[in-house]
């Protein structure tokens, strides 16, 4: 058993890599890409302003201009608990610091500077107390961010003029389909330019070269400041400087700039609460009615419960939600329940428990208010779930009713009640275990449709938003989390089989 579990656990690693790689590539290769989706997050209308520069910033910040595989490996490196190379540093408040990013020299360098791009200059190391080193690091970081920003802008301007020049002089082979310069263009051949063209390209190029020279100086300073270890290093070293162990870093959401883990922690409790209410309801209704239907096979109850459950199962959640809001929540009809949200606007000022307020009016209190708001979403989560579970229970029970041991028990004179509960039900548990383990991932994933209709800020709406905006870090963290839970649940199911049925063994 132990080796079996260990093997299964180890197999999870390649499976997870496969899952995340697939999702990563789907996001990266989706039309428009990650960056484009960030630009149009405003909805149906766009405001006319310069967006090219913004896009360049985004690409630089998240490394979006690297090949997708490189980006994936980088992501994997962050997520992996085993880290290679220089360790990150962490401030006491959780802020993470990485070694500074590299800078690339601007294109067509040789046109503007006779010397090749200079190597990083050597700068004196940073010394002093920890506080001084931290201050030096912050200063250097700000400087580098500034010079890097200026380099991005200068490079963009240069690229534009070069593209314009290439197009104007019939060298369309140097321009890619999306209007960028082919890498390495103008590096080895010196084009002949008229005075006029040079007046366009020259100053842009010189500005970019100057910006680059400043940027590598600032980068060298920042690298030295980082080397001085202004903050604590993250994790535990195994081979110093080569291998270390550290907590996975799920990164920051592109669209919200917040750590993904924080976002998940904001949304997870809502989803779990809803599901913690919904799943017991499903089980408490579906299993007994399945049992009852099996014992009274062919009776009125069997037919009616089967029909009703299948009918409910066939109603789409979207329709049910809209009908529920339209009829149950609108004051023009019944108006019994609220239309949206998890709490009333006044809930913050309510007491926690129901009470009579100052002027003798009954106030339902925070707790009841929450329950009242959850009625419609929970109903929508629940109603379609009865059919599968009750039918499974019924079928499994019927199988066992025909078994020899039941006939023996009957012949022995065991009361019918005991036969159903102690013998048949226990033996019908196996298929139920299979279903039971699937609820854990479902519990974390949340329901996209229900959460959307009832404005419930749970995992489903988080994921939906993330997908529509191609917020890669959130999507990946979600995928990873649900993947891990799913695989663990499957493993648990297998272990439970062994426990529930002595015939199952993994030795």
């Amino acid at each position: 058993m132990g080796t079996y579990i260990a093997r299964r656990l180890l197999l999870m690693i390649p499976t997870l890599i496969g899952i995340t790689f697939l999702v990563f590539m789907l996001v990266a290769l989706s039309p428009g890409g990650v960056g484009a989706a960030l630009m149009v997050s405003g909805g149906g209308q766009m405001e006319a302003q310069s967006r090219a520069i913004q896009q360049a910033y985004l690409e630089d910040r998240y490394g979006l201009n690297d090949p997708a595989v490189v980006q994936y490996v980088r992501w994997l490196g962050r997520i992996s608990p085993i880290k290679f190379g220089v360790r990150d540093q962490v401030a006491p408040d959780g802020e993470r610091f990485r070694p500074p990013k590299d800078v690339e020299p601007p294109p067509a360098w040789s046109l503007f500077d006779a010397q090749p791009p200079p190597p990083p200059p050597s700068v004196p190391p940073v010394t002093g107390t920890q506080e001084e080193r931290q201050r030096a690091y912050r200063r250097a970081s700000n400087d580098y961010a500034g010079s890097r920003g200026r380099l991005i802008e200068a490079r963009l301007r240069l690229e534009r003029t070069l593209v314009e020049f290439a197009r104007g002089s019939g060298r369309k082979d140097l321009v890619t389909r999306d209007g960028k310069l082919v890498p390495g263009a103008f590096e080895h051949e010196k084009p002949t330019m008229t005075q006029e063209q040079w007046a366009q390209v020259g100053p842009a190029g010189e500005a970019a070269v100057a910006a680059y020279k400043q940027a590598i100086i600032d980068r060298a300073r920042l690298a030295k400041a980082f080397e001085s270890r202004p903050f604590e290093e993250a994790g535990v070293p195994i081979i110093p400087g080569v291998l270390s162990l550290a907590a996975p870093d799920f990164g920051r959401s592109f669209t919200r700039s917040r750590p993904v883990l924080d976002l998940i922690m904001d949304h997870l409790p809502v989803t779990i609460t809803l599901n913690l209410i919904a799943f017991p309801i499903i089980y408490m209704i579906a299993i007994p009615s399945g049992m009852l239907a099996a014992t009274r096979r062919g009776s009125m109850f069997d037919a009616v419960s089967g029909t009703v459950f299948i009918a409910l199962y066939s109603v789409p959640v979207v329709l049910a939600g809209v009908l529920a809001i339209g009829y149950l929540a609108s004051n023009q009809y019944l108006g019994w329940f609220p239309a949206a949200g998890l709490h009333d606007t006044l809930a913050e000022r309510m007491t926690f428990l129901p009470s009579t307020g100052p002027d003798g009016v009954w106030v339902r209190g925070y707790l009841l208010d929450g329950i009242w708001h959850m009625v419609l979403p929970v109903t929508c989560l629940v109603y379609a779930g009865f059919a599968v579970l009750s039918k499974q229970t019924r079928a499994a029970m019927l199988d066992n009713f025909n078994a020899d041991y039941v006939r023996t028990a009957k012949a022995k004179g065991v009361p019918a009640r005991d036969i159903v509960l102690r013998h048949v039900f226990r033996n019908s548990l196996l298929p139920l275990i299979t279903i039971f383990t699937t609820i854990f991932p479902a519990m974390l994933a949340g329901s996209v449709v229900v959460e959307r209709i009832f404005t419930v800020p749970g995992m489903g709406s988080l994921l939906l938003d993330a997908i529509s905006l191609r917020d890669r870090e959130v999507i990946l963290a979600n995928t990873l989390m649900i993947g891990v839970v799913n695989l663990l649940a499957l493993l648990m199911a297998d272990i439970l089989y062994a426990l529930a049925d002595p015939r199952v063994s993994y030795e």
Partner: protein
Amino acid sequence: MQSRFGLKDFVLLLAIIAVGVIGILGWRQNDRVWEKTLVLTDKVNQVAAAQREQPASGGRGAEAVERLSGEQARQNQAVLAEVARLSSRVEALAGAPRVGAPLGEATKPPSPPPATVGGPAPEVTAAPATVADQHDESWARPGVPVTRAEPLHLARPPQAMDGYAPGGTFVEVFEGQPRTLTPYRYADVYGQRVVDQVCESLGAYDPQTLKMEGVLADAWQYDPDGMWLRVHINPRAVFSDGTPVTAEDARWTYQDFLYNPEIEADRFRGTYTAVDKIEVLSDRALEYTFKEKRFDSFDQVFGYPIIPKHFYSQFTPRQINEGAGLVMGSGPYRLERLDPSNQWAPPQDVVLVRNERFWGPPPSMDRLRYRTIQDSLARLTDYTNGKSDMIRPSTDQFRLKVDEPGFTNTTHALNWVNMRSGYSFIAWQCGERNGKLRPFHDRRVRMAMTHLIDRQRVSRDIYKNLYTIATGPFSPSTEQADPDIKPWPYDVDKAKQLLEEAGWKDRDNDGILENEQGERFEFEFVFATGSESTERLVAYIKDQCASVGIKCTPRPTDWSIFQTLLQNRDFDAITFAWSQSAPESDPNQIWHSSQIQNQGDNFIQWNSPEADRLIEAGRRETDHDKRMLVWHELHRLFHEEQPYTFMLNLSWLRFVNTRIENVNTYKTGIEQREMFIKTPNQGLLN
């Protein structure tokens, strides 16, 4: 005896669980009570502090403090009694839990700014604000006339209205969740709505005339050559913590916040580009130097919200980037809970409360609450249930509800064009696509397309007659648009004639037009998926094209791909909408031929030397009236050239509950501060 789980055990287990649950519930109850007390105490301290700063307004304020402290005492007792009642099940009497009594509705006389207010207020050598100060022009450059701002006022002050009552909570519903509220970091209209209430700029557009008027600026000098601007900040202006607004705050906001490379404010850096240098001359005066002479330099300086340096500089750039609710300013409202360690975060409602220290005419309502409901039916249901005061209905909902008998008795149904409303259009590819000229490069073909589309009918059948027909890119509510230009009529015969003039005839009798080279008139029409109205529009246009022998192939496209298509100029015709944010939009970005290269927004590759000339002339012209004449000429040119077929002016639609009074629509939008609640202390929402 077999040991088994019997009824007695079950009852015992239930009893134990019940005791546990009661314990937890009681503990939560106590917690909430304690929190409420803290909030109240905080409120009283706020008011008291505000009063200490404003001794001049004496009587009323002191009363308010007393009333509030009295209320607090009563509330405290009530709260304690309630706890006692719950634990001992003894009936207890409770006091009125009314928080946030109206305060200072009388206009405050000008009073000197506080020298130091408790907390981290910077050293300020307070210039005594006397009458003399009003005319102190020592900060000004000699020889250039000084413009003085009128004192802050509202067009229709609520205090002057019948039945005015201060107080109450205004509830507005957002369609999407704002992701962050921090100034210069927000990325949606919702963040902007909130920041507009909390932060102020040097100036603001007058809602009626659309002229830039001073808000934080009480006087300024604008270089006749448009190269510099000297501003004097109103000495009465204070942030919501009582610290005066200084020239250093204005400079710091621009240079060290907006242009701090580590703060992710790229989106706004693209908007504010005019300023080259800022020099602080004194506590109250500063000078902006511009990079070049531009018509909108002045508006840029007066338009950026000014935020307090002493508050924001306590955070690292990372904290600002990641923080969702760091909003502080000098506006009429402030965030209810501005606690950096426990900030507002997305799923919560945004709650703004009256800024007791606000230095302008006080707003009428105590609280503004912004909720998010994503589903449009749920939004409308919530509104008709009386749970919210203002929503943005869809065109269908608007028409449906307004036609419902009795609905307008309970709702102000508003539909108006303003400077922000924007317009929808069909853009024609005037240049090459994949190295080939498209039919629309010919002015006559574009004109024929415009004549082919019955915009009146589109407005009636698809948009329920809620929108008017657009004639150009400038909002008809602004002076930039020429009111004399009338839309081209729907005229199929004219369209056919124009197409024939341009050489498009059915030469082989297959029902499709061909030109002289025998190429068929086919084009690809790109539109965004997800909107039913757009799909109906596209279907209509396809039919219209077919009726004259043009083959139109609709190409539904996801929004995120639009950007790539536009950049690559990879479309024949495309439809979406532009929005505006100022009374004068800069046509350079979309229409100047220089924006054809460089992936600019002239994605239709419309190259008109005449337009270039007008745009350049307009951008350089600093005289308002002369510039308007140039824009009118440009508008006429758009009308004659039809680079876009301008479809509809997308006016704003709003439902506002009639319990809100003094609801006025303006060319700038809607004026929150003018509204008041008829019976603020009644009803569900208070």
